[in-house]
């Protein structure tokens, strides 16, 4: 049994896995850890010789595996490195090249579940990041925005390119406890994580946004569980509109009752408008034509 200590990143896992595979080390013989605390408990394996590297360069795996591995690597479950290596082993040494098409396989299913959780976390980051305007660059005049977000997994690098594409025309930083992403119009770069207090709390537009949110809500179709399954409470503290939710729910019954108790309005006659007149004439002649068509005589 050997213990492999790596940085918690896809590239680190990949480099180590290539060597192990080239040396023919079976998955059962490896313990993986990305926990520096644990590291002292084990004797660190020295990287294998260049010869092993050479053998490794011939390893071919389906492209889908690389994508899957990259996303699974961002998950926080400690077992992922070992599971990735086991599937890699089965794909290559195990001659199960079709393995990834087997959604019924236990290992594959597990990797897919992790990947799905990571994908969802990325999606929620794209959705729930809220930028706050902090100023403008004195030289370029570009507006500068800062956001705070708390992802569940290590997804900042995977999620950042989306923001680059969408917000290329403004400068922005997304701060998270784990890692921060920054865009200045030419370069996307990353820095270490920071604390919540580094990010602004509010934006002047938040009130107008809450006005929109309050008014787009339909009190006649309250469905709280549907809202919460897509927007779990853990995100609420960083969403400016979430402070309205309780009040909107509480008022909804009364608002609907008010509608039901409102006296019904009679139809008003059509105003004197040329367009409306032409429309009515058109409708009448079309109705007449239809009647004529269906007239059996």
């Amino acid at each position: 049994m050997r213990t492999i200590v790596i940085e918690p990143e896809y590239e680190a896992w990949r480099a180590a896995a290539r060597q192990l595979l080239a040396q023919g080390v079976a998955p059962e013989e490896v313990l993986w850890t990305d926990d520096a605390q644990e590291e002292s408990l084990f004797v660190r394996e020295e990287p294998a010789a260049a010869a092993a590297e050479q053998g490794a360069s011939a390893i071919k795996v389906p492209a889908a595996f690389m994508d899957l591995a990259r996303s699974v690597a961002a998950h926080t479950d400690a077992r992922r490195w070992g599971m990735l290596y086991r599937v890699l082993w089965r794909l290559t040494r195990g001659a199960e090249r079709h393995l990834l098409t087997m959604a019924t396989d236990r290992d594959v299913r597990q990797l897919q579940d992790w990947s799905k959780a990571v994908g969802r976390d990325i999606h929620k980051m794209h959705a729930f990041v809220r930028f706050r305007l902090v100023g403008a660059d004195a030289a370029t005049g570009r507006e500068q925005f800062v956001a705070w977000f708390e992802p569940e997994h290590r997804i900042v690098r995977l999620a950042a390119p989306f923001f680059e594409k969408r917000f290329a025309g403004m400068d922005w930083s997304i701060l998270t406890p784990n890692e921060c992403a920054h865009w200045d119009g030419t370069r996307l770069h990353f820095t270490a994580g920071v604390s919540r207090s580094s990010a602004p709390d509010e934006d002047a537009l938040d009130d107008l946004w809450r006005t929109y949110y309050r008014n787009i809500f339909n009190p006649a179709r309250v469905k709280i569980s549907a809202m919460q399954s897509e927007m779990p409470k853990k995100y609420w503290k960083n969403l400016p509109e979430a402070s309205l939710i309780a009040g909107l729910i509480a008022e909804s019954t009364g608002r609907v009752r008010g509608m039901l108790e409102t006296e019904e309005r009679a139809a008003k006659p059509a105003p004197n408008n040329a367009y409306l007149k032409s429309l009515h004439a058109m409708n009448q002649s079309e109705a007449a034509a239809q009647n004529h068509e269906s007239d059996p005589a």
Partner: protein
Amino acid sequence: MMDLTRKLEILADAAKYDASCASSGAARKDSRGGKGVGSTGGMGICHSYTPDGRCVSLMKVLMTNACLYDCHYCINRRSSNVTRARFTPDEVVQLTLDFYKRNYIEGLFLSSGIIRSADHTMELVIEVARKLREVHQFRGYIHLKTIPEASQDLIALAGRYADRISINVELPSQQSLNTLAPEKNLARTESAMGHIRGKIEERHAEKRKPDAPKPPPFATGQSTQMLVGADASTDAVILGCADKLYTSHRLRRVYYSAFSPIPEPSSILPLKAPPLIREHRLYQADWLLRFYDFKVEEIASAADPNLDLALDPKLSWALRNRATFPVDVNRAPRELLLRIPGLGVRNVERILAARRYTRLRLADLVRLRVQMKKLLPFITTADHHPAKLGLDSDSLRARFLPPPEQLEINFDAPPTPATSDFLSVRSGEF
């Protein structure tokens, strides 16, 4: 002068009855290399959810809620005494950009009450889209509601700036429109849809010519909305209308919107509880039409024109067609696998892929997270043969009642409402 906050209150409130908020299916574009912001393409993003369970993806507003028409289900109709407001094009442009830059939304859904004439109204709506695209290089999602009576040139122009355009059919028959929306005409709506379809396909064909210059952009899809429960139309009529729109005009989506109470009710259309479960079943049926190769007559026939509210339409079909089952998941062709209650399109694909290498057993299906309870009576696997008795017994339907909590079909439309969500109008209970 009314301030911006007040206008937004009125004009967002006026827009909330449009169910569509989808922002998917646009052509891929982004803001790199430009001066502005915005990107589209790929999966739509719901930036928030309101307590009605609906996604907030686009800023959905009306240009104005003043309207010449008198659609009795609509709060904006001319007979309503609602407070009227009107945005200037610049106000909508600024709001869209401000909201977008904060990542509150991923675009604009702009509609309008009809003022002065169809063309005049269309021009106002188009002006917003033009400014966003041309002055601000906005590359986010734009959905424009169009008016069938507007000139073809204006509808074509709207399509140039928008990612999606839509015209609401509102009700599935002219007869219903005559009573509830006397200004609207189904034939004109359909002819405008046909025209839009032509434009979309024309552009598509241009794009595929090998060395032709890139054609100007045009919306990649059109959608529509039908109101459910405002008139007496059966589900068969509603689905028949939807099916026709999908096949003859290639619509991307038909949205079904349960008629829900509005302030300013009309004497011609008394308020009642929104038929949320019916709306949900219609979405499920719509899914079956589009992705499961079902025909309308199989789901809702002339003899039995309304969907079973207690069971999802696929299960309901299976119970009416027991002779088809059990289906052998290791052998059956794709089209038959798609008919199995509890089995979605994705899992059908997974089964097809996996069974090339293995004979599937129940444990394999469990790992696919299918709803075993629903599935079991209808399938055979290497280690499971349902008792014939089970399939034939009358109690099979009862087994699936009360309605399963979990949805069989995932869609981005409103999810199953619990019975407690029903309004009891008479007693005033909510």
